[in-house]
């Protein structure tokens, strides 16, 4: 037998490994849609994910109801009181909105539209399963007009942005993901900084505020919104609240722990804002 016939399997294994390495290289090229193999597999599995997500929501909901039934009355009283307060706030907000519209007309400003005109609602059907990344999979994709880098928000604030798009699915990289960074502004003082993901804080659903200016007076309780700097995220989207300020051992630098308004452990629906 020749050299190749004797070692046919070893050579085939090496060829397969080289093909996989080439695919790894090709997959890093920034195409408009996701890498074709990933797109094909996820497009096939998305309907199954959607169905199972609905089932798990139902099962989880039943268990939650049974466990929390005894707290229902107390929660009901609290919500009734909060509802009354919110109705009062809504009346105030409505009058401010009308005043805003009148002022805009007076200044002849063009309406920039509301989120409803340029947004796509989507359900979350999958969660990160490899323990190293923090992302969601939603049930809308390029066929619904979603593109990479579209911003994703919830009713509470920023969620993240679209990092991969398939035909009927898309992956959202969240702001607490370890590789994420968002330009933010402290609403009270106007100081700008960067909110980054962190492996340790990600477990608690939080992120880290870094590159804090030495002269910045950030305190616990400060609220943050996106600054629009860096052109990754538009300005003005609520991010979260500072819950802790940590100095390093030498006292030379510090960072803050931020609790996002969005509860990433209980997110079901999101809004994708088209660029």
């Amino acid at each position, binding site marked *: 037998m020749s050299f190749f016939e004797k070692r046919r399997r070893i050579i085939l*294994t090496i060829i397969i490994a080289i093909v996989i390495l080439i*695919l790894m290289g090709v997959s890093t090229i920034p195409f408009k849609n996701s890498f074709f*193999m990933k797109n094909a597999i996820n497009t096939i*599995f998305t309907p199954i994910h959607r169905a199972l997500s609905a089932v798990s929501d139902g099962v989880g909901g039943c268990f939650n109801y049974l466990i929390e039934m005894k707290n229902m009355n107390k929660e009901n009283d609290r919500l009734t009181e909060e509802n009354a307060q919110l109705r009062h706030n809504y009346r105030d907000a409505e009058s401010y909105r009308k005043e805003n519209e009148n002022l805009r007309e007076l200044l002849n400003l063009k309406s920039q539209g509301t989120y409803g005109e340029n947004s796509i609602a989507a359900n979350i059907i999958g969660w990160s*399963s490899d*323990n190293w*990344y923090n992302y969601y999979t939603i049930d809308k994709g390029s066929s619904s007009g979603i593109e990479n880098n579209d911003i994703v928000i919830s009713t509470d604030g920023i969620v993240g942005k679209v990092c991969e798009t398939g035909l009927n699915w898309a992956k959202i990289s969240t702001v607490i993901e370890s590789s994420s960074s968002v330009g933010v502004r402290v609403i009270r003082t106007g100081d700008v900084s960067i909110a980054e993901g962190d*492996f*340790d804080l990600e*477990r608690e659903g939080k992120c880290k505020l870094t590159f804090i200016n030495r002269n910045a007076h950030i305190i616990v309780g400060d609220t943050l919104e996106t600054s629009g700097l860096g052109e990754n995220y538009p300005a003005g989207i609520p991010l979260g609240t500072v819950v802790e300020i940590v100095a390093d051992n030498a006292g030379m630098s510090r960072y803050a722990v931020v609790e996002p308004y969005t509860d990433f452990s209980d997110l079901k629906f999101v809004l994708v804002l088209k660029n």
Partner: protein
Amino acid sequence: MRYVKTSVIVLILYIFQETLLSEFKPFGVVPNLVAVAVFCFSLSESEWFLAGIFGALCGILLDAASGAVFGLNALLCMGFAILCCVLSVKFFKGKFMVCLLFAFCMSFLYETFFYVFGFALWNNTDVTVCFLYKIVPVTLLNTFAAAILYIPVKKINEADI
């Protein structure tokens, strides 16, 4: 026929891992059931080449759902499947506790390699956090899953040989 049955098991595990397990996350992590199935299959397979092909295909499934570069899981699964098969011929000899030991060691090495090639090489050096809160819990959960998965996978392999 055994490859068809094993493939069906892998697909079911993949869907379970991607949906229910990744939503509820026992102990804050998701066990890698597909990788455990690869290890169990490789331990009861005598042909290392077939084990490698099976590992590569399962790895491609994991890559479709992973946030890492496409192909990393395929390479790791193929490599560890071949390693499991080659070592099992010499050391395994069908013992259940040795299977658990293999699953433990391979899971630990798999997650460590994933961290090194996915993060550590790119200056993400939260080593303590990654080991304590990701690698070790996943390894333990994978070993537990191997205890459940090994016997059905072994029976499928032996029934059709």
